[in-house]
């Protein structure tokens, strides 16, 4: 009996194509949101966790733990304070682990500018797709694959950093970066970052500066001060600073290099024991915030999952409303199909056949809607699966 039942149900649904299609579409759309949210959360969780597992220990200035974690691992947001470069030197001198300083202050076309040491490349196992090597000199940069793709940049191009305060004449100028290489895709936040040396990031941050030769044709009304050994010009004279072989040596940092700021320090430990010892030593310094990435991430995800529970409850209510609507449609449908029902019964439909026929039709519609929702949600998720989910 299943064969004829399915055949009749299918024929009936096909006869009312528009109605069936709209019903399937409605159920599909209802299902897409919760399924996609679930899938995206799973994907987010996997990506966030894999990054946290790869970066077990993070050191920064006291303040928001989540801000420090999110900036140090995912290059998003900002942290309140900074720690001096001295900490990195002390960790390196203590041995056992490799400290990897990060200075994340500026942006390039809205993407994070990450000042770091060459150890970062080894730590994250980053490979050059084109160009190289890792930037060592002032104003050199390597860029993530996604940034390169979206902005149409490649090795050999130049790109200025973003002006932080357009009307702050006392602020740092954008610095023209020379792209030395493009990294291979990794499916991590590194794909969307611009990596420079710490020195470059400090210059962008205004911690260091160079002196620029003035063009003899310059408007003399822009001269603010003229001494025998130095001419001070109005800030309007340049739009961006470019490091050239002529002015490279004039770039310098005032004060003790140990006091230069870094946003955070990643700890690369070969063994768990080394990591534990490093954590223990660092935690003795009350001026530092030492994070176990996975613990912090789990706390953060706990908050996200609470928000998801509310969304789930909402989805459940919407689904319930949809099922009630479907019930109403089926009831009205029975009225409309009264004659068909009578025909089936008179010709010889067994007891309960019509009910089973209607149930089969509903099951096909709901099943098709569910498949549509599942496939659409999977397609949406698959579209992001290959890359890092920006948030």
């Amino acid at each position, binding site marked *: *009996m299943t*064969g*004829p039942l399915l*055949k*009749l149900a299918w*024929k*009936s649904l*096909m*006869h*009312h194509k528009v109605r069936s299609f709209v019903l399937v579409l409605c159920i599909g759309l209802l299902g897409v949101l919760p399924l996609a949210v679930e899938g995206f959360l799973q994907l987010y969780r996997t990506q966030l966790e894999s990054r946290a597992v790869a970066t077990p220990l993070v050191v920064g200035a006291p303040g928001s733990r989540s801000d420090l974690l999110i900036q140090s691992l995912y290059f998003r947001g900002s942290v309140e304070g900074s720690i001096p470069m001295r900490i990195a030197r002390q960790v390196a001198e203590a041995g056992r682990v490799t400290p990897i300083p990060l200075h994340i202050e500026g942006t390039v076309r809205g993407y994070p500018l990450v000042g770091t040491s060459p150890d970062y490349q080894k730590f994250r196992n980053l490979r050059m797709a084109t160009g190289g090597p890792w930037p060592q000199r002032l104003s050199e940069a390597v860029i993530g694959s996604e940034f390169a793709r979206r902005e149409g940049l490649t090795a050999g191009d130049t790109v200025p950093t973003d002006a932080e305060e357009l009307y702050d004449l006392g602020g740092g100028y954008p610095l023209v970066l020379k792209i030395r290489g493009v990294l291979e895709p990794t499916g991590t936040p590194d794909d969307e970052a611009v990596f420079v040396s710490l020195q470059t990031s400090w210059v962008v941050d205004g911690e260091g500066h160079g002196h620029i030769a003035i063009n003899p044709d310059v408007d003399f009304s822009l001269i603010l001060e003229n001494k025998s050994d130095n001419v001070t010009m109005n800030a309007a004279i340049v739009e961006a600073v470019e490091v050239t072989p002529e002015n490279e040596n004039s770039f310098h940092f005032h004060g003790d290099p140990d006091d230069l700021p870094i946003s955070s320090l990643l700890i690369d430990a070969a063994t768990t024991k080394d990591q534990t010892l490093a954590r223990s030593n660092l935690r003795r310094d009350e001026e530092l915030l030492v994070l176990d990435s996975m613990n912090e991430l789990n706390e953060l995800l706990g908050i996200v999952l609470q928000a998801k529970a509310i969304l789930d409850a909402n989805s459940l209510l919407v689904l319930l409303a949809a099922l009630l609507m479907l019930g109403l449609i089926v009831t009205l449908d029975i009225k409309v199909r009264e*004659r*068909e029902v*009578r*025909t*089936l*019964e*008179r*010709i*010889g*439909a*067994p*007891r309960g*056949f019509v009910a089973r026929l209607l149930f089969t039709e509903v099951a096909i519609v709901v099943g098709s809607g569910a498949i549509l929702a599942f496939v659409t949600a999977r397609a949406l998720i698959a579209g992001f699966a290959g890359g890092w989910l920006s948030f």
Partner: protein
Amino acid sequence: MNQGFSVEVRDFLHRHPGQEQPVSVEKLAIGAGEKAAIIGPSGCGKTTLLSAISGILVPTSGSVIVGDTEVSKLGEKERRAFRCDRIGLVFQEFELLEHLDIRENAFLPRWLAGREASKEDQERLRERAERCGIADLLHRKPHALSQGERQRAAVCRALVTSPPLILADEPTGSLDQGSGEAVLDLLFEEAQLTGSTVIVVTHDRSLLDRFDKVHELSGREVA
């Protein structure tokens, strides 16, 4: 040739819920292979009687015997199987499902009995469809046919199982004179060819001469 079923109704009484006047038939006897008409005023119970003979309903009292089977004593499942296998039904409103084409409508009783149409069924349909003049219309949906074509399709569905008993409830009621005659021709031709018994409920007195027997529901046999 098929052996048609005789039909015997005795002390038939059926009371519809909420209806004061019950339908009653003291005696009705139709021989195997006969062509019988049932007439009577509207609401006298012609359709009820036909429904009882086909096993669609069970009378409140009395017996309905079709061939060797006392249909009124059968359970729901047996009556349904009996109806699907042994009785061809034709209705005034054709009762074709709009979402099925004519071929599928013809095999609907087979499907409802839980069976797929066999090669033999296919061959029989082709032959009956040719005889009914709808061989070219088998893949059309009912809404694409004229009234006369629809009724011929409904007759074709009733004949496709070569039933020993054909019951037709006002088969010409929705048709013009010519189409009505043509439908009756088809039913009688089947009876002629296969020996089936044909019982037709009709209002059309001009057709009565063509039947072997006419039964008026007051109980009076008029011919």
